[in-house]
Protein backbone atom coordinates (compact mmCIF):
# COMPACT_ATOMS: atom_id res chain seq x y z
CA UNK A 1 0.00 0.00 0.00
CA UNK A 2 1.25 3.50 -0.83
CA UNK A 3 2.76 5.46 2.11
CA UNK A 4 0.12 8.19 1.75
CA UNK A 5 -2.66 5.63 2.23
CA UNK A 6 -0.78 4.22 5.23
CA UNK A 7 -0.45 7.71 6.69
CA UNK A 8 -4.19 8.29 6.34
CA UNK A 9 -5.11 4.96 7.93
CA UNK A 10 -2.68 5.21 10.84
CA UNK A 11 -3.42 8.88 11.33
CA UNK A 12 -7.12 8.17 11.57
CA UNK A 13 -6.63 5.34 14.06
CA UNK A 14 -4.45 7.62 16.20
CA UNK A 15 -7.06 10.40 16.02
CA UNK A 16 -9.82 8.04 17.10
CA UNK A 17 -7.85 6.77 20.09
CA UNK A 18 -7.08 10.38 21.09
CA UNK A 19 -10.78 11.35 20.90
CA UNK A 20 -11.78 8.26 22.84
CA UNK A 21 -9.27 8.87 25.63
CA UNK A 22 -10.20 12.55 25.83
CA UNK A 23 -13.85 11.61 26.32
CA UNK A 24 -12.93 9.33 29.19
CA UNK A 25 -12.58 12.35 31.50
CA UNK A 26 -15.38 12.35 34.01
CA UNK A 27 -15.75 8.59 34.08
CA UNK A 28 -15.61 7.92 37.79
CA UNK A 29 -18.10 5.21 38.52
CA UNK A 30 -19.98 2.32 36.98
CA UNK A 31 -22.96 4.44 35.94
CA UNK A 32 -20.78 6.87 34.02
CA UNK A 33 -18.69 4.02 32.56
CA UNK A 34 -21.59 1.93 31.33
CA UNK A 35 -24.36 4.47 30.84
CA UNK A 36 -22.54 7.85 30.58
CA UNK A 37 -24.71 8.94 33.53
CA UNK A 38 -27.68 8.71 31.14
CA UNK A 39 -26.60 12.05 29.70
CA UNK A 40 -25.99 11.40 26.00
CA UNK A 41 -27.99 13.52 23.51
CA UNK A 42 -30.41 11.53 21.35
CA UNK A 43 -28.54 12.27 18.11
CA UNK A 44 -25.29 10.91 19.54
CA UNK A 45 -27.03 7.74 20.67
CA UNK A 46 -28.79 7.46 17.31
CA UNK A 47 -25.56 7.83 15.32
CA UNK A 48 -23.84 5.43 17.69
CA UNK A 49 -26.55 2.80 17.14
CA UNK A 50 -26.21 3.29 13.38
CA UNK A 51 -22.44 3.00 13.63
CA UNK A 52 -22.61 -0.36 15.38
CA UNK A 53 -24.75 -1.63 12.52
CA UNK A 54 -22.24 -0.62 9.89
CA UNK A 55 -19.44 -3.08 10.49
CA UNK A 56 -16.49 -3.84 8.22
CA UNK A 57 -18.46 -6.84 6.99
CA UNK A 58 -21.03 -4.36 5.61
CA UNK A 59 -18.36 -2.25 3.90
CA UNK A 60 -16.68 -5.29 2.36
CA UNK A 61 -19.32 -8.01 2.11
CA UNK A 62 -22.48 -6.03 1.38
CA UNK A 63 -20.80 -4.02 -1.38
CA UNK A 64 -19.60 -7.30 -2.88
CA UNK A 65 -23.12 -8.67 -2.59
CA UNK A 66 -24.44 -5.65 -4.46
CA UNK A 67 -21.94 -6.33 -7.24
CA UNK A 68 -22.88 -10.00 -7.64
CA UNK A 69 -26.53 -10.05 -6.61
CA UNK A 70 -27.88 -6.51 -6.85
CA UNK A 71 -30.22 -4.69 -4.49
CA UNK A 72 -32.51 -7.45 -3.22
CA UNK A 73 -30.53 -7.88 0.01
CA UNK A 74 -32.13 -4.59 1.16
CA UNK A 75 -35.35 -6.53 1.84
CA UNK A 76 -33.56 -7.96 4.88
CA UNK A 77 -33.98 -4.54 6.55
CA UNK A 78 -37.63 -3.86 5.72
CA UNK A 79 -38.66 -4.97 9.19
CA UNK A 80 -36.32 -2.53 10.93
CA UNK A 81 -38.46 0.65 10.93
CA UNK A 82 -41.47 -1.38 12.13
CA UNK A 83 -39.40 -2.95 14.89
CA UNK A 84 -38.10 0.43 16.02
CA UNK A 85 -41.59 1.85 16.26
CA UNK A 86 -42.85 -1.16 18.21
CA UNK A 87 -39.89 -0.99 20.58
CA UNK A 88 -40.26 2.75 20.99
CA UNK A 89 -43.81 2.29 22.18
CA UNK A 90 -43.30 -0.85 24.30
CA UNK A 91 -39.94 -2.04 25.58
CA UNK A 92 -37.85 1.14 25.49
CA UNK A 93 -40.00 3.19 27.89
CA UNK A 94 -40.20 0.14 30.12
CA UNK A 95 -36.48 -0.61 30.28
CA UNK A 96 -35.42 3.02 30.50
CA UNK A 97 -37.95 3.67 33.25
CA UNK A 98 -36.82 0.57 35.14
CA UNK A 99 -33.40 2.22 35.62
CA UNK A 100 -31.56 -1.00 34.87
CA UNK A 101 -28.03 -1.38 33.56
CA UNK A 102 -28.79 -4.43 31.47
CA UNK A 103 -31.84 -5.87 29.76
CA UNK A 104 -31.31 -9.14 31.71
CA UNK A 105 -31.34 -7.35 35.09
CA UNK A 106 -34.96 -6.53 34.32
CA UNK A 107 -35.71 -10.24 33.80
CA UNK A 108 -34.78 -11.11 37.39
CA UNK A 109 -37.17 -8.50 38.71
CA UNK A 110 -39.90 -9.80 36.44
CA UNK A 111 -39.20 -13.52 36.67
CA UNK A 112 -36.27 -14.99 38.59
CA UNK A 113 -32.48 -15.19 38.79
CA UNK A 114 -32.06 -18.38 36.70
CA UNK A 115 -33.89 -16.77 33.74
CA UNK A 116 -31.72 -13.67 34.05
CA UNK A 117 -28.52 -15.70 34.25
CA UNK A 118 -29.40 -17.99 31.36
CA UNK A 119 -30.28 -15.16 28.96
CA UNK A 120 -27.21 -13.17 30.05
CA UNK A 121 -25.02 -16.23 29.53
CA UNK A 122 -26.43 -16.82 26.04
CA UNK A 123 -25.72 -13.20 25.19
CA UNK A 124 -22.11 -13.45 26.43
CA UNK A 125 -21.54 -16.64 24.47
CA UNK A 126 -22.90 -15.46 21.15
CA UNK A 127 -21.58 -11.88 21.35
CA UNK A 128 -18.15 -12.90 22.60
CA UNK A 129 -17.68 -15.19 19.62
CA UNK A 130 -19.13 -12.74 17.12
CA UNK A 131 -16.77 -10.03 18.38
CA UNK A 132 -13.87 -12.20 17.27
CA UNK A 133 -15.35 -12.78 13.84
CA UNK A 134 -15.95 -9.05 13.34
CA UNK A 135 -12.19 -8.58 13.73
CA UNK A 136 -11.30 -11.70 11.73
CA UNK A 137 -13.38 -10.97 8.62
CA UNK A 138 -11.62 -7.75 7.52
CA UNK A 139 -8.25 -9.06 8.77
CA UNK A 140 -8.49 -12.00 6.36
CA UNK A 141 -9.36 -9.71 3.47
CA UNK A 142 -6.59 -7.22 4.25
CA UNK A 143 -4.13 -10.05 4.46
CA UNK A 144 -5.05 -11.37 1.02
CA UNK A 145 -5.36 -8.01 -0.72
CA UNK A 146 -2.51 -6.04 0.82
CA UNK A 147 -0.27 -8.92 1.83
CA UNK A 148 -0.38 -7.94 5.52
CA UNK A 149 0.39 -10.47 8.18
CA UNK A 150 -3.05 -11.45 9.38
CA UNK A 151 -2.09 -11.23 13.05
CA UNK A 152 -0.93 -7.65 12.55
CA UNK A 153 -4.33 -6.86 10.99
CA UNK A 154 -6.05 -8.35 14.03
CA UNK A 155 -3.84 -6.25 16.32
CA UNK A 156 -4.32 -3.05 14.30
CA UNK A 157 -8.10 -3.37 14.59
CA UNK A 158 -8.32 -4.85 18.08
CA UNK A 159 -5.71 -3.01 20.17
CA UNK A 160 -6.78 0.64 19.61
CA UNK A 161 -10.43 -0.30 20.05
CA UNK A 162 -9.82 -2.13 23.30
CA UNK A 163 -7.75 0.82 24.51
CA UNK A 164 -10.33 3.58 24.17
CA UNK A 165 -13.24 1.32 25.09
CA UNK A 166 -11.52 0.03 28.21
CA UNK A 167 -10.47 3.45 29.46
CA UNK A 168 -13.36 5.59 28.25
CA UNK A 169 -16.43 3.41 28.55
CA UNK A 170 -19.67 4.09 26.69
CA UNK A 171 -19.14 7.86 26.55
CA UNK A 172 -15.89 7.40 24.60
CA UNK A 173 -17.47 4.71 22.43
CA UNK A 174 -20.50 6.84 21.52
CA UNK A 175 -18.56 10.02 20.67
CA UNK A 176 -15.96 8.10 18.66
CA UNK A 177 -18.84 6.42 16.81
CA UNK A 178 -20.11 9.87 15.75
CA UNK A 179 -16.73 10.79 14.20
CA UNK A 180 -16.39 7.38 12.56
CA UNK A 181 -19.85 7.62 10.99
CA UNK A 182 -18.92 10.94 9.40
CA UNK A 183 -15.83 9.32 7.87
CA UNK A 184 -17.76 6.25 6.69
CA UNK A 185 -20.55 8.21 5.01
CA UNK A 186 -18.03 10.62 3.44
CA UNK A 187 -15.98 7.68 2.11
CA UNK A 188 -19.09 5.99 0.67
CA UNK A 189 -20.21 9.19 -1.08
CA UNK A 190 -16.69 9.81 -2.41
CA UNK A 191 -16.60 6.29 -3.87
CA UNK A 192 -19.96 6.85 -5.58
CA UNK A 193 -18.68 10.07 -7.18
CA UNK A 194 -15.45 8.34 -8.26
CA UNK A 195 -17.35 5.45 -9.81
CA UNK A 196 -19.68 7.78 -11.72
CA UNK A 197 -16.63 9.61 -13.08
CA UNK A 198 -14.74 6.44 -14.04
CA UNK A 199 -17.67 4.60 -15.67
CA UNK A 200 -17.51 5.67 -19.35
CA UNK A 201 -21.29 5.98 -19.79
CA UNK A 202 -23.83 8.30 -18.20
CA UNK A 203 -25.31 7.43 -14.78
CA UNK A 204 -28.67 6.64 -16.42
CA UNK A 205 -27.00 4.29 -18.90
CA UNK A 206 -25.04 2.71 -16.04
CA UNK A 207 -28.38 1.98 -14.33
CA UNK A 208 -29.75 0.59 -17.62
CA UNK A 209 -26.82 -1.83 -17.77
CA UNK A 210 -27.29 -2.84 -14.12
CA UNK A 211 -31.03 -3.22 -14.64
CA UNK A 212 -30.56 -5.39 -17.74
CA UNK A 213 -28.68 -7.93 -15.60
CA UNK A 214 -31.36 -7.92 -12.89
CA UNK A 215 -29.28 -6.09 -10.31
CA UNK A 216 -31.89 -3.39 -9.72
CA UNK A 217 -34.66 -5.86 -8.92
CA UNK A 218 -35.22 -5.06 -5.24
CA UNK A 219 -38.65 -6.50 -4.46
CA UNK A 220 -39.49 -10.19 -4.53
CA UNK A 221 -43.07 -10.81 -3.46
CA UNK A 222 -42.93 -14.58 -3.74
CA UNK A 223 -43.64 -16.45 -0.51
CA UNK A 224 -40.86 -18.97 -0.23
CA UNK A 225 -39.61 -20.08 3.18
CA UNK A 226 -36.35 -21.25 1.62
CA UNK A 227 -35.49 -17.87 0.14
CA UNK A 228 -33.90 -15.42 2.59
CA UNK A 229 -34.34 -12.34 0.44
CA UNK A 230 -38.04 -11.87 -0.16
CA UNK A 231 -40.37 -9.07 0.87
CA UNK A 232 -42.18 -11.35 3.35
CA UNK A 233 -39.12 -12.80 5.03
CA UNK A 234 -37.80 -9.26 5.38
CA UNK A 235 -40.98 -7.76 6.79
CA UNK A 236 -42.06 -10.65 9.03
CA UNK A 237 -38.86 -12.54 9.83
CA UNK A 238 -36.82 -9.36 9.71
CA UNK A 239 -39.15 -7.56 12.15
CA UNK A 240 -38.74 -10.36 14.68
CA UNK A 241 -34.97 -10.36 14.18
CA UNK A 242 -34.74 -6.59 14.64
CA UNK A 243 -37.11 -6.64 17.65
CA UNK A 244 -34.88 -9.22 19.23
CA UNK A 245 -31.61 -7.53 18.34
CA UNK A 246 -32.56 -3.97 19.26
CA UNK A 247 -34.85 -4.90 22.10
CA UNK A 248 -32.90 -7.57 23.94
CA UNK A 249 -29.27 -7.56 22.84
CA UNK A 250 -27.28 -5.66 25.44
CA UNK A 251 -24.97 -4.12 22.82
CA UNK A 252 -27.97 -2.16 21.50
CA UNK A 253 -30.02 -1.82 24.68
CA UNK A 254 -27.08 -0.19 26.45
CA UNK A 255 -27.07 2.59 23.87
CA UNK A 256 -30.56 3.80 24.53
CA UNK A 257 -30.33 3.19 28.27
CA UNK A 258 -27.60 5.86 28.22
CA UNK A 259 -29.95 8.48 26.73
CA UNK A 260 -31.03 11.42 28.90
CA UNK A 261 -34.71 10.49 29.00
CA UNK A 262 -37.27 8.00 27.70
CA UNK A 263 -38.17 10.43 24.93
CA UNK A 264 -34.53 10.78 23.88
CA UNK A 265 -34.10 6.99 24.05
CA UNK A 266 -37.05 6.52 21.69
CA UNK A 267 -35.83 9.28 19.39
CA UNK A 268 -32.38 7.71 19.22
CA UNK A 269 -33.89 4.40 18.13
CA UNK A 270 -36.02 6.11 15.52
CA UNK A 271 -33.00 8.04 14.29
CA UNK A 272 -31.12 4.85 13.60
CA UNK A 273 -34.19 3.62 11.71
CA UNK A 274 -34.27 6.89 9.72
CA UNK A 275 -31.26 6.18 7.60
CA UNK A 276 -30.86 2.41 7.79
CA UNK A 277 -32.64 1.52 4.56
CA UNK A 278 -31.25 4.48 2.55
CA UNK A 279 -27.71 3.81 3.87
CA UNK A 280 -27.87 0.11 3.09
CA UNK A 281 -29.29 0.95 -0.34
CA UNK A 282 -26.29 3.25 -0.88
CA UNK A 283 -23.86 0.48 0.12
CA UNK A 284 -25.54 -2.00 -2.23
CA UNK A 285 -25.72 0.58 -5.03
CA UNK A 286 -21.97 1.09 -4.71
CA UNK A 287 -21.58 -2.63 -5.32
CA UNK A 288 -23.88 -2.40 -8.34
CA UNK A 289 -21.81 0.49 -9.75
CA UNK A 290 -18.60 -1.51 -9.17
CA UNK A 291 -20.17 -4.26 -11.28
CA UNK A 292 -20.93 -1.73 -14.05
CA UNK A 293 -17.36 -0.40 -13.77
CA UNK A 294 -16.00 -3.89 -14.40
CA UNK A 295 -18.20 -4.27 -17.47
CA UNK A 296 -15.91 -1.67 -19.06
CA UNK A 297 -12.65 -2.58 -17.30
CA UNK A 298 -10.96 -5.98 -17.42
CA UNK A 299 -11.98 -7.66 -14.15
CA UNK A 300 -9.95 -10.32 -12.38
CA UNK A 301 -11.17 -13.88 -12.92
CA UNK A 302 -11.01 -14.31 -9.15
CA UNK A 303 -11.02 -11.26 -6.90
CA UNK A 304 -9.20 -13.03 -4.08
CA UNK A 305 -5.59 -12.58 -5.22
CA UNK A 306 -4.32 -15.49 -3.12
CA UNK A 307 -6.77 -17.87 -4.78
CA UNK A 308 -6.15 -16.45 -8.22
CA UNK A 309 -2.44 -17.00 -7.67
CA UNK A 310 -3.08 -20.57 -6.49
CA UNK A 311 -5.03 -21.45 -9.66
CA UNK A 312 -2.52 -19.69 -11.93
CA UNK A 313 0.44 -21.46 -10.34
CA UNK A 314 -1.30 -24.81 -9.79
CA UNK A 315 -2.89 -25.17 -13.24
CA UNK A 316 -1.11 -22.67 -15.51
CA UNK A 317 -2.44 -23.83 -18.89
CA UNK A 318 -6.01 -24.21 -17.53
CA UNK A 319 -5.77 -20.72 -16.04
CA UNK A 320 -4.42 -19.24 -19.28
CA UNK A 321 -7.26 -20.81 -21.28
CA UNK A 322 -9.93 -19.69 -18.80
CA UNK A 323 -8.46 -16.20 -18.74
CA UNK A 324 -8.44 -15.97 -22.54
CA UNK A 325 -12.07 -17.12 -22.83
CA UNK A 326 -13.17 -14.86 -19.98
CA UNK A 327 -11.43 -11.83 -21.48
CA UNK A 328 -12.99 -12.62 -24.85
CA UNK A 329 -16.52 -12.74 -23.43
CA UNK A 330 -15.80 -9.70 -21.33
CA UNK A 331 -14.78 -7.72 -24.44
CA UNK A 332 -18.04 -8.71 -26.14
CA UNK A 333 -19.98 -7.61 -23.04
CA UNK A 334 -18.17 -4.25 -23.15
CA UNK A 335 -19.29 -3.76 -26.76
CA UNK A 336 -22.89 -4.80 -26.06
CA UNK A 337 -23.04 -2.53 -23.01
CA UNK A 338 -21.92 0.44 -25.11
CA UNK A 339 -24.52 -0.56 -27.71
CA UNK A 340 -27.18 -0.49 -24.96
CA UNK A 341 -26.00 2.93 -23.81
CA UNK A 342 -26.17 4.27 -27.37
CA UNK A 343 -29.50 2.60 -28.28
CA UNK A 344 -32.13 5.00 -29.53
CA UNK A 345 -35.12 2.76 -30.28
CA UNK A 346 -36.85 0.58 -27.71
CA UNK A 347 -36.26 -2.58 -29.78
CA UNK A 348 -32.48 -1.88 -30.00
CA UNK A 349 -32.45 -1.34 -26.25
CA UNK A 350 -34.32 -4.59 -25.57
CA UNK A 351 -32.09 -6.57 -27.91
CA UNK A 352 -28.91 -5.24 -26.29
CA UNK A 353 -30.34 -5.88 -22.81
CA UNK A 354 -31.16 -9.46 -23.74
CA UNK A 355 -27.62 -10.03 -25.11
CA UNK A 356 -26.17 -8.52 -21.94
CA UNK A 357 -28.20 -10.91 -19.81
CA UNK A 358 -27.02 -13.94 -21.78
CA UNK A 359 -23.40 -12.80 -21.64
CA UNK A 360 -23.74 -12.23 -17.91
CA UNK A 361 -24.93 -15.81 -17.40
CA UNK A 362 -22.03 -17.13 -19.47
CA UNK A 363 -19.45 -15.05 -17.58
CA UNK A 364 -20.91 -16.09 -14.22
CA UNK A 365 -20.67 -19.73 -15.23
CA UNK A 366 -16.97 -19.26 -16.04
CA UNK A 367 -16.37 -17.59 -12.71
CA UNK A 368 -18.23 -20.36 -10.91
CA UNK A 369 -15.95 -22.91 -12.57
CA UNK A 370 -12.87 -20.91 -11.61
CA UNK A 371 -14.16 -20.63 -8.01
CA UNK A 372 -14.74 -24.38 -7.89
CA UNK A 373 -11.20 -24.99 -9.16
CA UNK A 374 -9.77 -22.60 -6.56
CA UNK A 375 -11.69 -24.40 -3.82
CA UNK A 376 -10.34 -27.73 -5.06
CA UNK A 377 -6.74 -26.53 -5.15
CA UNK A 378 -6.66 -24.54 -1.89
CA UNK A 379 -9.12 -26.65 0.12
CA UNK A 380 -10.72 -23.39 1.32
CA UNK A 381 -14.04 -21.68 0.71
CA UNK A 382 -13.29 -18.84 -1.67
CA UNK A 383 -15.74 -16.14 -0.44
CA UNK A 384 -14.69 -14.21 -3.51
CA UNK A 385 -17.55 -11.75 -3.02
CA UNK A 386 -15.72 -10.25 -0.01
CA UNK A 387 -12.73 -9.31 -2.15
CA UNK A 388 -14.50 -7.38 -4.90
CA UNK A 389 -14.59 -4.04 -3.08
CA UNK A 390 -11.09 -4.15 -1.54
CA UNK A 391 -9.60 -5.16 -4.89
CA UNK A 392 -11.40 -2.30 -6.62
CA UNK A 393 -10.25 0.12 -3.90
CA UNK A 394 -6.63 -0.96 -4.16
CA UNK A 395 -6.40 -0.96 -7.94
CA UNK A 396 -8.72 1.80 -9.10
CA UNK A 397 -9.38 4.42 -6.44
CA UNK A 398 -7.19 7.55 -6.64
CA UNK A 399 -4.29 7.79 -4.23
CA UNK A 400 -5.47 9.11 -0.90
CA UNK A 401 -9.10 8.18 -1.44
CA UNK A 402 -8.11 4.53 -1.18
CA UNK A 403 -6.57 5.34 2.21
CA UNK A 404 -9.78 7.10 3.26
CA UNK A 405 -11.90 4.09 2.31
CA UNK A 406 -9.58 1.65 4.09
CA UNK A 407 -9.66 3.92 7.15
CA UNK A 408 -13.48 3.79 6.87
CA UNK A 409 -13.34 -0.03 6.90
CA UNK A 410 -11.22 0.13 10.06
CA UNK A 411 -13.68 2.64 11.50
CA UNK A 412 -16.60 0.32 10.78
CA UNK A 413 -14.84 -2.64 12.40
CA UNK A 414 -13.85 -0.61 15.46
CA UNK A 415 -17.37 0.79 15.93
CA UNK A 416 -18.92 -2.64 15.97
CA UNK A 417 -16.33 -4.15 18.31
CA UNK A 418 -16.36 -1.22 20.76
CA UNK A 419 -20.10 -1.52 21.29
CA UNK A 420 -19.83 -5.26 21.81
CA UNK A 421 -16.90 -5.04 24.22
CA UNK A 422 -18.68 -2.44 26.29
CA UNK A 423 -21.85 -4.48 26.49
CA UNK A 424 -19.98 -7.72 27.22
CA UNK A 425 -18.26 -6.01 30.14
CA UNK A 426 -21.55 -4.54 31.40
CA UNK A 427 -23.28 -7.90 31.43
CA UNK A 428 -20.27 -9.64 32.98
CA UNK A 429 -20.05 -7.11 35.81
CA UNK A 430 -23.72 -6.39 36.47
CA UNK A 431 -25.35 -9.77 35.73
CA UNK A 432 -22.60 -12.02 37.07
CA UNK A 433 -19.91 -10.32 39.18
CA UNK A 434 -22.18 -7.97 41.15
CA UNK A 435 -25.05 -10.46 41.21
CA UNK A 436 -23.21 -13.59 42.25
CA UNK A 437 -19.71 -12.67 43.49
CA UNK A 438 -19.66 -9.27 45.23
CA UNK A 439 -22.72 -7.05 45.45
CA UNK A 440 -21.22 -4.31 47.63
CA UNK A 441 -18.12 -2.28 46.98
CA UNK A 442 -16.79 1.17 46.23
CA UNK A 443 -17.26 2.96 42.91
CA UNK A 444 -13.52 2.73 42.35
CA UNK A 445 -13.58 -1.04 42.84
CA UNK A 446 -16.42 -1.65 40.38
CA UNK A 447 -14.90 0.76 37.86
CA UNK A 448 -11.65 -1.17 38.03
CA UNK A 449 -13.52 -4.48 37.59
CA UNK A 450 -15.45 -3.00 34.63
CA UNK A 451 -12.27 -1.89 32.91
CA UNK A 452 -10.66 -5.26 33.56
CA UNK A 453 -13.70 -7.04 32.12
CA UNK A 454 -13.51 -4.87 28.96
CA UNK A 455 -9.83 -5.64 28.58
CA UNK A 456 -10.35 -9.38 29.10
CA UNK A 457 -13.15 -9.56 26.56
CA UNK A 458 -10.93 -7.60 24.14
CA UNK A 459 -8.20 -10.17 24.54
CA UNK A 460 -10.75 -12.97 24.13
CA UNK A 461 -12.05 -11.38 20.91
CA UNK A 462 -8.52 -11.06 19.49
CA UNK A 463 -7.76 -14.68 20.37
CA UNK A 464 -11.01 -15.88 18.72
CA UNK A 465 -10.10 -13.73 15.68
CA UNK A 466 -6.67 -15.35 15.49
CA UNK A 467 -8.30 -18.78 15.23
CA UNK A 468 -11.18 -17.61 13.04
CA UNK A 469 -8.81 -16.28 10.35
CA UNK A 470 -7.67 -19.83 9.73
CA UNK A 471 -11.11 -21.38 9.94
CA UNK A 472 -13.12 -19.36 7.44
CA UNK A 473 -16.26 -21.36 8.00
CA UNK A 474 -16.15 -20.44 11.69
CA UNK A 475 -17.44 -17.00 10.79
CA UNK A 476 -20.54 -18.53 9.30
CA UNK A 477 -20.94 -20.95 12.19
CA UNK A 478 -20.85 -18.11 14.70
CA UNK A 479 -23.38 -16.08 12.75
CA UNK A 480 -25.78 -19.01 12.60
CA UNK A 481 -25.13 -19.67 16.31
CA UNK A 482 -26.73 -16.34 17.15
CA UNK A 483 -29.88 -17.21 15.22
CA UNK A 484 -30.49 -20.06 17.70
CA UNK A 485 -30.89 -17.62 20.56
CA UNK A 486 -32.19 -14.30 19.31
CA UNK A 487 -35.79 -15.24 18.70
CA UNK A 488 -36.06 -17.21 21.94
CA UNK A 489 -34.63 -14.36 24.01
CA UNK A 490 -37.15 -12.02 22.39
CA UNK A 491 -39.83 -14.50 23.36
CA UNK A 492 -38.80 -14.19 27.03
CA UNK A 493 -39.18 -10.42 26.89
CA UNK A 494 -42.54 -10.74 25.15
CA UNK A 495 -43.59 -13.18 27.85
CA UNK A 496 -42.57 -10.59 30.44
CA UNK A 497 -45.35 -8.37 29.17
CA UNK A 498 -47.99 -11.01 29.87
CA UNK A 499 -49.13 -10.46 33.47
CA UNK A 500 -49.77 -14.15 34.21
CA UNK A 501 -46.37 -15.35 32.98
CA UNK A 502 -44.20 -16.89 35.69
CA UNK A 503 -40.48 -17.51 36.14
CA UNK A 504 -40.70 -21.25 35.55
CA UNK A 505 -42.61 -20.65 32.32
CA UNK A 506 -39.95 -18.18 31.15
CA UNK A 507 -37.03 -20.48 31.93
CA UNK A 508 -38.54 -23.64 30.44
CA UNK A 509 -40.00 -21.63 27.55
CA UNK A 510 -36.54 -20.30 26.70
CA UNK A 511 -35.12 -23.80 26.50
CA UNK A 512 -38.12 -24.99 24.50
CA UNK A 513 -37.65 -22.07 22.09
CA UNK A 514 -34.03 -22.94 21.43
CA UNK A 515 -34.96 -26.62 21.00
CA UNK A 516 -37.64 -25.66 18.46
CA UNK A 517 -35.14 -23.59 16.47
CA UNK A 518 -32.63 -26.45 16.56
CA UNK A 519 -35.35 -28.81 15.29
CA UNK A 520 -36.14 -26.51 12.37
CA UNK A 521 -32.46 -25.88 11.64
CA UNK A 522 -31.54 -29.56 11.49
CA UNK A 523 -34.90 -30.97 10.37
CA UNK A 524 -35.61 -28.44 7.64
CA UNK A 525 -32.22 -26.89 6.81
CA UNK A 526 -33.51 -25.23 3.65
CA UNK A 527 -35.78 -22.90 5.65
CA UNK A 528 -34.19 -19.45 5.75
CA UNK A 529 -32.62 -18.53 9.11
CA UNK A 530 -34.76 -15.34 9.20
CA UNK A 531 -37.74 -17.52 10.12
CA UNK A 532 -35.86 -19.03 13.09
CA UNK A 533 -36.52 -15.90 15.12
CA UNK A 534 -40.26 -16.22 14.59
CA UNK A 535 -40.15 -19.90 15.57
CA UNK A 536 -38.12 -19.20 18.72
CA UNK A 537 -40.19 -16.25 19.91
CA UNK A 538 -43.56 -17.90 19.29
CA UNK A 539 -42.49 -21.16 20.98
CA UNK A 540 -41.28 -19.36 24.09
CA UNK A 541 -44.50 -17.38 24.40
CA UNK A 542 -46.73 -20.42 23.91
CA UNK A 543 -44.79 -22.79 26.19
CA UNK A 544 -44.20 -20.09 28.79
CA UNK A 545 -47.87 -19.10 28.81
CA UNK A 546 -49.05 -22.71 29.11
CA UNK A 547 -46.70 -23.40 32.02
CA UNK A 548 -47.87 -20.25 33.73
CA UNK A 549 -51.58 -21.13 33.59
CA UNK A 550 -53.29 -20.87 36.92
CA UNK A 551 -52.37 -18.59 39.79
CA UNK A 552 -52.72 -14.83 39.87
CA UNK A 553 -50.80 -12.39 37.71
CA UNK A 554 -47.34 -11.46 38.96
CA UNK A 555 -47.25 -7.81 40.10
CA UNK A 556 -45.18 -5.62 37.78
CA UNK A 557 -41.72 -4.91 39.19
CA UNK A 558 -41.49 -1.39 40.57
CA UNK A 559 -38.99 0.87 38.82
CA UNK A 560 -35.80 1.55 40.73
CA UNK A 561 -35.72 5.03 42.27
Amino acid at each position, binding site marked *: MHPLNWAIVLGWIGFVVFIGLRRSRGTRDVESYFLANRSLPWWVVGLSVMATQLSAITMIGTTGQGATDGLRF*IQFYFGLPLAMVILGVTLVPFLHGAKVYTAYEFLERRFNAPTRSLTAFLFLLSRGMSCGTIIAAPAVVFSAIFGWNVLWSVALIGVPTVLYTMIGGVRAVAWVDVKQMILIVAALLAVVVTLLIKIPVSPVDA*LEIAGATGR*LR*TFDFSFNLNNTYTFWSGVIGGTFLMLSYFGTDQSQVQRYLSAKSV*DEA*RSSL*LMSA*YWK*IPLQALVLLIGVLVFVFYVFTRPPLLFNPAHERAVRDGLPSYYALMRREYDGQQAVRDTVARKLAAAITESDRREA*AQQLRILGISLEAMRAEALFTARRITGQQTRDVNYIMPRFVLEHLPLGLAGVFIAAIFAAAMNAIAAELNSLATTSVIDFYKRWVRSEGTDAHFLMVSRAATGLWGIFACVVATFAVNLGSLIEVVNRFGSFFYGSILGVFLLAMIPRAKGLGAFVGLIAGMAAVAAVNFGAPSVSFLWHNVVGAVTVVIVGSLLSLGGSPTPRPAPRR
Partner: protein
Amino acid sequence: MNVEPAETDAQRFRKTLIRVMTVQVVALLLLWWLQVRFTS
Protein backbone atom coordinates in the same frame (compact mmCIF):
# COMPACT_ATOMS: atom_id res chain seq x y z
CA MET B 1 -48.02 37.81 26.78
CA ASN B 2 -48.93 34.61 24.97
CA VAL B 3 -46.73 31.59 25.77
CA GLU B 4 -46.97 28.52 23.57
CA PRO B 5 -47.39 25.34 25.62
CA ALA B 6 -44.29 23.13 25.49
CA GLU B 7 -44.59 20.19 23.11
CA THR B 8 -45.47 17.01 24.94
CA ASP B 9 -43.33 13.89 24.67
CA ALA B 10 -46.11 12.14 22.77
CA GLN B 11 -46.38 14.97 20.23
CA ARG B 12 -42.61 15.02 19.70
CA PHE B 13 -42.52 11.24 19.30
CA ARG B 14 -45.40 11.38 16.82
CA LYS B 15 -43.63 14.09 14.77
CA THR B 16 -40.38 12.09 14.68
CA LEU B 17 -42.29 8.95 13.81
CA ILE B 18 -43.98 10.64 10.86
CA ARG B 19 -40.62 11.92 9.60
CA VAL B 20 -39.01 8.49 9.94
CA MET B 21 -41.82 6.68 8.14
CA THR B 22 -41.83 9.33 5.40
CA VAL B 23 -38.12 8.76 4.76
CA GLN B 24 -38.72 4.99 4.59
CA VAL B 25 -41.65 5.37 2.20
CA VAL B 26 -39.64 7.73 -0.04
CA ALA B 27 -36.69 5.29 -0.03
CA LEU B 28 -38.96 2.37 -0.88
CA LEU B 29 -40.68 4.34 -3.64
CA LEU B 30 -37.29 5.24 -5.13
CA LEU B 31 -36.23 1.58 -5.07
CA TRP B 32 -39.55 0.59 -6.63
CA TRP B 33 -39.09 3.20 -9.34
CA LEU B 34 -35.55 1.90 -10.06
CA GLN B 35 -36.94 -1.61 -10.42
CA VAL B 36 -39.83 -0.62 -12.68
CA ARG B 37 -37.83 1.84 -14.81
CA PHE B 38 -34.67 -0.21 -15.38
CA THR B 39 -35.70 -3.86 -15.09
CA SER B 40 -37.53 -5.61 -17.89
